[in-house]
């Protein structure tokens, strides 16, 4: 019964979102307040309807209602409850409904909040949201209905892929979707602006929290996915340039460019057409990501069951949702161009470079991901574009970006050369020299690329440090505490976010350069040495889990003095219902590094294959991402302390005098 109600709610939502999509647009064009006010009302109703619908689906999973085809195909009665719930989105239809839910919640949130916005703008934004919702609701109802019933309910379900039965999976898709779908808000802002032809600073100001929320969620979502792959897939790797990973990276890159670009619009009224384009691009890339994952055209470990017929539907959504706004942009974009009143060596210039580099990086990833498909269409040949290609092309662009990151925020608006900049530049250069020098002196046998990476870490770290010091050091009678209070929260957020990148790079480089590895065939009693640890393999034990049986290796870790400091138990699991074997790596994460152990095949007679790793600083990868997200949160929602006593655009308190006194 509840399922049928859920289905009905979904249909209702579809109709309502149609209304939400069209009427307010007409109303805004005609200045008809009644029609415009339909938008928030419809948005809230759609949110409630989809929420109910999603709840009904979750209910079906919780109660193991096997008459629901989706539950029968993807769940099992012995699954732990949390995985029954998260199994709701562990499949194509359910995850699509989750996508729609989050879309509806964002729309409802804007409808409920956003009081300061002019009615027409709000109406247009919600209308665009409504149109996107309509497309996805149609996709769900007509090709991927989660509420389909089976004629006769089986006694039990087919179960969920064991690899997906994991806490990381429970959070990863919702977090990721909060990001992907959140970008639809910025997209709606941009399209609304293109329709009305008005882009101003207030528009950018209102857009900012939505961009930041989406960006933070996406950062966390990608980090979660990478971390999950690291511990779940048993390969010890954390990024594979897999098409679906690329699908999440591209919107992130565009969103990063967008959030920086929006700052310039808000504070200086410049880069309007860039910002509009980036907002459209970011969500378009989310949609392209959806296409990649659900159309079955590109093979990936992550893909849902592939179905080219569904791919057609997504392509149609893409054509409308991306094609029309880009056409609008081609037509209206030039009107948004403002005359530039800044030199290229200024903060605006730095941000333009930032935009450009991020767009180039995005283009590289997009090209690399789609090239095999394109080539196959043209010549029939099949090639692979794998990690070596992306490492060679993407990394250098990011390196350039890291260089700019240290000096861009320090430059003044309009004309950048200031004393503050000089100090930061010199400190950064010294920092780079030190780290590069230290590494080449002490480490042995690694690539020049690694040297460059370490130099960059030194550059950025020292640069940020220099900026912080300049802002906080006692000056003009004010002590550190007083000066710290005067720094705008968004600047602290920026420092944190950029610093997060330094931490991330340290993790990536540390693991890549200094990891240790031992692959052995061990019999019970053998001792293996890795890094500065002695590992005693005492044997395997049989373990019984809730829905699996496992063989667990017992590994005793001792340090150089002989003290036992850890027991790691990597497992090989056999899941009863799904009849699948998985390998569960045993990981002991610490700030200094991870101990990582994997159990391979074998038996007590010939011994077992053991793969032991020590990965220095690897958790800094995800730590860095979390710090970045925190920085973003601060920047988004921190109080604008300087706004109160400003008559001119917000600048940092000790920026050297803009333009005055110099010819402009």
């Amino acid at each position, binding site marked *: 019964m509840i399922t049928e109600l859920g289905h009905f709610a979904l249909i209702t939502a579809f109709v309502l979102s149609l209304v939400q999509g069209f009427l307010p647009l007409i109303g805004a064009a005609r200045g008809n307040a009644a029609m415009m006010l339909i938008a928030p009302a419809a948005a809230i109703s759609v949110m409630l309807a989809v929420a109910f619908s999603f709840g009904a689906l979750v209910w079906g999973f919780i109660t193991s209602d096997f008459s629901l085809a989706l539950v029968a195909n993807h769940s099992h009665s012995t699954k732990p409850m949390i995985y029954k719930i998260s199994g709701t989105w562990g499949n194509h239809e359910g995850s699509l409904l989750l996508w729609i839910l989050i879309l509806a919640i964002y729309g409802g949130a804007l409808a409920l909040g956003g*009081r*300061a916005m*002019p009615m027409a703008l709000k109406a247009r934004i919600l209308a665009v949201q409504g149109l996107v919702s309509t497309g996805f609701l149609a996709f769900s109802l007509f090709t991927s209905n989660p509420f389909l019933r089976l004629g006769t309910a089986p006694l039990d379900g087919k179960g969920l892929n064991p690899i997906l039965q994991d806490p990381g999976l429970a959070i990863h898709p919702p977090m990721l979707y909060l990001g992907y779908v959140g970008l639809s808000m910025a997209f709606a802002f941009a399209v609304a602006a293109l329709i009305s032809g008005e882009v101003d600073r207030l528009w950018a100001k209102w857009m900012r929290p939505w961009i930041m929320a989406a960006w933070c969620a996406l950062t966390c979502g990608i980090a979660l996915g990478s971390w999950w792959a690291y511990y779940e897939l*048993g*390969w*010890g*790797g954390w990024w594979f*340039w*897999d*098409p679906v990973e690329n699908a999440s990276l591209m919107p992130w890159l565009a969103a990063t460019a967008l959030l920086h670009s929006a700052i310039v619009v808000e504070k*200086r009224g410049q880069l309007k057409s860039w910002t509009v384009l980036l907002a459209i691009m970011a969500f378009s890339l989310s949609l392209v990501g959806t296409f990649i994952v659900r159309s079955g055209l590109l*093979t*990936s*470990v992550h893909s849902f069951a592939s179905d080219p017929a569904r791919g057609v539907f997504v392509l149609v959504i893409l054509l409308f949702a991306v094609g029309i706004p880009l056409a609008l942009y081609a037509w209206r974009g030039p009107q948004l*161009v*403002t*005359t*530039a*009143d800044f030199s*290229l060596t200024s903060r605006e210039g730095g941000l333009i470079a930032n935009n*450009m*580099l991020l767009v*180039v990086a995005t*283009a590289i990833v997009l090209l*690399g991901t789609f*090239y095999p498909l394109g080539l196959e269409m043209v*010549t029939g*040949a*099949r*090639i*692979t*574009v*794998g*990690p*070596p*290609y992306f*490492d*060679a092309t993407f990394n*250098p*662009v990011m*390196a*350039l970006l890291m260089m700019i990151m240290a000096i861009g925020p320090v430059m003044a608006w309009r004309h950048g050369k200031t004393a503050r900049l000089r100090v930061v530049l010199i400190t950064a250069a010294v920092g780079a020299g030190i780290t590069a020098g230290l590494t080449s002196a002490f480490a042995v046998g690694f*690539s*020049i*690329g690694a040297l*460059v990476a370490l130099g960059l870490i030194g550059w950025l770290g020292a640069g940020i440090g220099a900026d912080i010091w300049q802002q906080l050091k006692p000056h003009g009678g004010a002590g550190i505490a007083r000066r710290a209070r005067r720094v705008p929260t968004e600047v602290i957020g920026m420092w944190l976010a950029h610093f997060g990148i330094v931490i991330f790079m340290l993790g*990536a480089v540390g693991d*890549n350069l200094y*990891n240790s*590895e031992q*692959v*052995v*065939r061990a019999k019970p009693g053998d001792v293996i040495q890795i890094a500065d640890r002695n590992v005693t393999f005492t044997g395997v034990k049989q373990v019984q889990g809730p829905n699996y049986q496992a063989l667990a290796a017992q590994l005793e870790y001792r340090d150089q003095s002989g003290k036992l400091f850890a027991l790691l138990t990597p497992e090989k699991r056999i899941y009863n219902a799904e009849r699948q074997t998985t390998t569960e790596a045993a990981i002991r994460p610490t700030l200094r590094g991870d101990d990582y152990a994997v159990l*391979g*095949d074998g038996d007590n007679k010939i011994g077992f294959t053991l*793969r032991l*790793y020590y*990965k220095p600083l690897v958790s800094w990868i995800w730590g860095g991402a979390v710090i970045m997200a925190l920085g973003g949160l601060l920047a988004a929602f921190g109080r604008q302390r300087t706004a109160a006593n400003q008559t001119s*655009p917000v600048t940092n308190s000790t920026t050297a005098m803009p333009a005055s006194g110099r010819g*402009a």
Partner: protein
Amino acid sequence: MIIPRMRNLMLVGILPLGLLLVSLVPNTIVTTAANAITAEEMLANPELEERARNLSKQLRCLVCQNQSIDDSDADLARDLRREVRSQIAAGDSDDAIVDQLRQKYGDYVLLNPPLDLATMFLWLAPFAFMLLGGVIVLMARRQSGTESINELDATERAKIEKMLASRNGRNE
């Protein structure tokens, strides 16, 4: 015709050049760790084993989705690893080994796309993108001139007054 200022040209020119220089350097920052090897497979000579591992990381496991034969547990991956090691032990060069596999399985087996006519666009594109980006930025600046604009004009001022008034009205 665009006649960009010397300094701007240098700025734009340096970026693609820098890109070219850095990309020519073997770059291994973001790669996966190894994992599917068993102890028996490994060659006795550590140098040869190192070569084998590096080669394996560049070869695709054909029955997996986007993994190298070094990473994969699949039977075919194991067979190919063994093949690579036996050829290394027999004294073949890295290029010869890769070429032999290409003869049998096609370019698909390479994780690093080859540099030939078909992939010319793929390899040149990053530089082209950078150049294009730089050119667009310069063109836009050239076109826009340098009038100062940041004052509110009468219409904008009126709009803001109206918005503030209606907002204040709502708050009270």
